[in-house]
């Protein structure tokens, strides 16, 4: 699969797809999108890069094992769910929101951080699975 067209295209597609995945992640509260789809799109960006440039280059690009995204994302989601329990004596995962929406991003609440956690976990899981399969092949 190491054609020059794909390689050149993938170098441009990687940042665009990552940006698109973040856009999908952020619009996910009321519109189609969210952490899961966003995470899948982001991992597709890396998989495409791996197709074009080989697994080694993608790993070099990532700098750390994607497996570590799993505990990081889980921890973020867990803490955003735990905040209402510890701070406000509300049930687990109760949504807490800032009163004033921020510019560009909009209202910020625990649901956003939960979704970012999901985004990271999905990337971690997908990339780990795909890297493991393609390494052992």
């Amino acid at each position, binding site marked *: 699969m190491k054609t020059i067209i794909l390689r050149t295209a993938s170098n441009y597609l990687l940042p665009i797809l990552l940006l698109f995945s973040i856009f999908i992640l952020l619009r996910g509260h009321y519109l189609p999108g969210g952490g899961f789809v966003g995470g899948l799109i982001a991992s597709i960006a890396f998989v495409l890069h791996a197709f074009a440039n080989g697994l080694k280059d993608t790993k070099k690009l990532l700098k750390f094992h994607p497996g570590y995204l*799993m*505990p990081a994302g889980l*921890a973020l989601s*867990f803490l955003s769910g735990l905040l209402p*329990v510890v701070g406000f*004596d509300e*049930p*687990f*995962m109760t*949504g807490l929101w800032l009163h004033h929406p921020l510019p560009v991003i909009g209202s910020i609440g625990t649901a956003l951080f939960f979704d970012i956690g999901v985004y990271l976990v999905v990337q971690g899981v997908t990339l780990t699975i795909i890297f493991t399969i393609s390494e052992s092949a």
Partner: protein
Amino acid sequence: MMQQVVTYPLLFQLLLSIILMFVWRRIDLQRIISICGSLVGVALSGWLFFHVWTNGTQTVQAASWDAPFGITFVADTLAATLVLLTSISGLAVSSYSSASVIPARLRFGYFPIFHFLLLGLIGAFLTGDIFNLYVWFEIIIISSFVLITLGGEKPQIEGAVKYFTLNILASIIFLTAIAVMYGLTGSLNMADLAVIVPKLENRGLVEVAAILFLIGFGIKSAVFPLYFWLPASYHTPPSAVSAIFGGLLTKVGVYALIRIFTLIFLDDILLDDILLIIAVLTLFSGAIGALVQKNVRKVFSYLIICHIGFMIAGLGMFTEAAIAGAIFYLIHDIIVKTNLFMISGVIYRIKGTINIKSLGGLYEKYPKLSLLIAIPFFSLIGIPPLSGFWPKISLILAGLDTNNYIVIGGIIFASLLTLIVIARVWSEVFWKNPVKLPKREHFLYFEDMTNLRKVQFIAPVVFLTLVSLYIGFGAEHIQQISSRIAGELLNHGEYIKAVMPKS
């Protein structure tokens, strides 16, 4: 703060596995975190149990979405008891596995996944939503797949394929049942279903859903025609993994059966008859299977199947006394089966094999340890006043009350065969003259362990033996707990009121 205590054991296990994932490579640290964390987990579950015991059924509406729209976590006495037992077994197996599982396996994330398994178990006991129950079941089976294949030896992989196929099939059947229930009622909350289902006109489809649930949970709890995956897989992984599987995994299926058939599908004579027939056949086939096996762990696997029959029989007779007996047996069985598989691991580490033919002379060499092992064996058989005796008496009395003489016959037959099987294991493994075995290379023998590891290895067996002695000698307390659970299960108005106070 007191209201949220329902979710504490659950959240704590999740926290524990996240922390363990961050120290993926440092297995010494993982050992310490896992054992200390499990101790805290037992404390939290104990707290939950006493809170429920004094204040009645507790609920938490996750994310503050009221039932029946959100997911509810419900801790009634049954759930709280099982969460406590899960934590106790988890503590024992955590200490046991830090000594007995070899570092090569620990390095592949044994402890994080082990705590994920406990998380799934606790979640399955606490949830009050039927689709959420499915999700917890999936968490359980995904973690158990990883644990069962860890190490990747040939029998392990083959056992995993069988275990995997049947368990996925069970999940799909369970999912189909949920789909049918949702189509019928438009609700997923178990308390809400308990209100809606008796009023439904379409009894035929309700029956179909009930049978689908029965098959799905039946595969998971290994009842008569659906158990063949269990003896094909439970003897293959390390004994620590078998211990947690044997003690808890099939019992989640039994728990789900008890929950569904005392809450949602009631007054169904056909179903009760089916349950009784299944129970008797399970008792017979499990006991006879155990009789012919030569691998100690396979013998124990068949005994798991056999003893599932007691609980299903209690559920099938459907009187308060019978369900109390089944619950008592469930409490006893979780502790004793976990202990049995840990004992099989102890034998394996001493001798280097698990085949009855090549074992022998353990009593001569380790008399104190053998006497210790005798106690769980006797409680398994049900010699009075040890723990297995009392629930069997309750079940037989309940059988007399409802004139189910075949069930009584099955119970007595299974108890007798258990006695014979255990006597055979005892005489072959402990009393027979020792057989000369070649020393295995690269094998961690019990004698070669450091003193700390020996303590970590034997202490859980002692601990669970003490717990099962308490269940036997403090039978009055356990009987009190199980009759209260049976009362709550049969008068489920309180459960529904706790989940949906407004209705």
